[in-house]
């Protein structure tokens, strides 16, 4: 295979995986704090819209990404207000958040359909052969740093320890004086911001334009990735690369004219996800699921 083609497949994989990693890392932290937010899709699409609108209005990518992070973080906080303060059901509220995000972004986004944001800057090829580095953008590198950062935060810092304690047993954490609700609100804001950044990657880097419902289910894949990764940041990376890789390879195999039905190829990423889930869910394999014990449970303690 020529170098250009391999490089193209690899960058394609990174492009497909980056928004998933961003959203999944955010949701991982949220779930580690014991909250199940099914509104990832809604927060992503809000980020996609807000990022695009801010970039088009100001001309600055930085402001665009910041707007995406802030708006989606607000969505996360709204979820926090409803589920942590007003104690509504997390599953129902999360689903509602997705519908709300899709509707709200479509409403405000109507005037932005058809506008374009220009090509996102990519790295130069550094004089190296092929297009590989030419197709790499700063956010692809950022997600690697973020995965390391989330890992270090959860495993090596006091803050991470508190967050995990809250997620494992909120009553015990509350009893020794940790502010359960405040920790969870912070986690939700972080999760929202990451989902928003993932959405903005779609609208500002990958496509780059805005149309309503453009996230097309990526929020749900990110949710599945968190479980797939057994709540570990580096496995989120691995899972997203696996998922992105199979998605891109199935497109390429069709281009090569392989005699396999397109529908079967389209199923492959999902089949692989289920397969790995079954494998790691089997007890005794050493790769056990590590779901936070308080995940999705209502915390009624007062502070």
């Amino acid at each position, binding site marked *: 295979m020529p170098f250009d083609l391999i490089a193209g497949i690899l960058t394609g994989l990174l492009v497909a995986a980056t928004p998933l990693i961003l959203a999944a890392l955010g949701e991982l932290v949220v779930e580690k704090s014991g909250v199940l937010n099914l509104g990832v899709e809604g927060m992503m699409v809000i980020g996609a819209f807000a990022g695009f609108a801010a970039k088009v209005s100001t001309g600055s990518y930085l402001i665009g990404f910041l707007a995406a992070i802030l708006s989606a973080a607000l969505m996360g906080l709204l979820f926090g207000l409803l589920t942590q303060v007003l104690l509504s059901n997390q599953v129902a509220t999360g689903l509602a958040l997705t519908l709300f995000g899709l509707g709200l972004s479509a409403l405000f986004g109507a005037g932005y359909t058809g506008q374009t944001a220009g090509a996102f800057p990519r790295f130069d090829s550094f004089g190296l052969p092929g297009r590989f580095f030419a197709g790499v953008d700063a956010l692809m590198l950022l997600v690697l740093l973020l995965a390391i950062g989330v890992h270090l935060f959860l495993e090596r810092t006091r803050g991470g320890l508190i967050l995990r304690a809250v997620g494992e047993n909120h009553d015990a954490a509350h009893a020794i004086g940790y502010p359960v609700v405040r920790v969870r609100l912070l986690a939700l804001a972080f999760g929202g911001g990451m989902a928003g950044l993932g959405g903005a990657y779609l609208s500002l880097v990958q496509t780059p334009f805005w*149309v309503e419902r*453009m996230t097309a289910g990526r929020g749900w894949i990110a949710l599945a990735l968190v479980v797939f990764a057994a709540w570990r940041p580096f496995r989120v990376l691995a899972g997203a690369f696996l998922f992105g890789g199979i*998605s891109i390879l199935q497109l390429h195999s069709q281009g090569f*004219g392989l005699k396999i039905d*397109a529908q079967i190829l389209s199923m492959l990423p999902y089949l692989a996800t289920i397969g790995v889930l079954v494998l790691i869910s089997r007890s005794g394999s050493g790769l056990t699921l590590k779901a936070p014990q308080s995940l999705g449970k209502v915390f009624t303690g007062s502070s």
Partner: protein
Amino acid sequence: MINRRRILSAAALAAGVAIGVAAGLAGAVAQTKPTKVGFVYVGPIGDHGWSYQHHQGLLAVKKEFGDKVETTFVENVPEGPDAERVIDQLAAAGHDLIITTSFGFMNPTVKVAAKYPKIKFEHISGFKQAENVATANIRYYEGRYVAGILAAKASKGGTIGYIGSFPIPEVVMGMNAAFLGAKSVNPNIKMKIIWVSTWFDPGKEADAAKALADQGADIIMQHTDSPAPVKFAEERKLFAIGQASDMKAFGPNAILTSIVNNWNGYYIGRVKAAMDGSWKSGDVWGGFNSGMLDLPSYGPGVAADAKALADAAKAKITSGELHPFTGPLKKQDGSEFLKAGEKIADKDLAGMNFYVEGIDGVLPK
């Protein structure tokens, strides 16, 4: 519960009606009884594709008849039970002509039409007619044949990339037509096809365009609805063919042409017929000669000789001299389906489920 739902949906509809009619009402005060025309769209009018083009038809009707018509539209109507309720509400609100613009509105339209025999219905892209239900569609494949000529002439590497949605006859005949058009000017042309199993997923469509480009395709054609492939081609300095509406804005340098659906003339004609009492049910499948299909705005990548070839083919198709599917033609497996000089019958075309000879890859079943 049912009552509350009725009230809610009536309120929602009233809001839609208010928006759509506001402009019409302003001028309609002096008029005795304007003809009321209602449109039902499956997507948002801002989709810059399918529903957008139908809405252009509504605007053309308003412009043509001024205060003699009152127009209403309801957008984002899901295909399913909701559609029937929306169509029923429009009928109950006293519309004279109701136009439903998605394949999935077929059964609801026929069902509501049976309830209101005096109201006229137009259903787009379906195949069920009734006394008061007419159907219409466009011969998109004619445009794809000409687009194939432009693509083959603009390609330096000799490979066209084609993004497909679902393997239904309409999409398959478009691919075959584009390939035959391309082959008519370059016998060695290759076509790589990627099916993405969705009508609309900008991210996946961009991924597919990238995969095609990485495999050496330098022209991107699509039968999916978002402008992502055109945008990608612009960024990668390739060429692209737009779908459903003019996608020039997404790729001013990349776009060779767009295959544009133009419903304006058809809708004006049907509204006029409804006004003067000559409206009859029927089935229209219009191509270039009907004005329902157009290829506007050749891009800067179209050379003079390519333009001449495309224009000539378009003129011949318009006059009926050329049919994109004229024998001798073989299927992918080498078996003959059209003898020399034979033109394909409409019913065979409408059920086309195979690639023509020369296209690689497997057609999903």
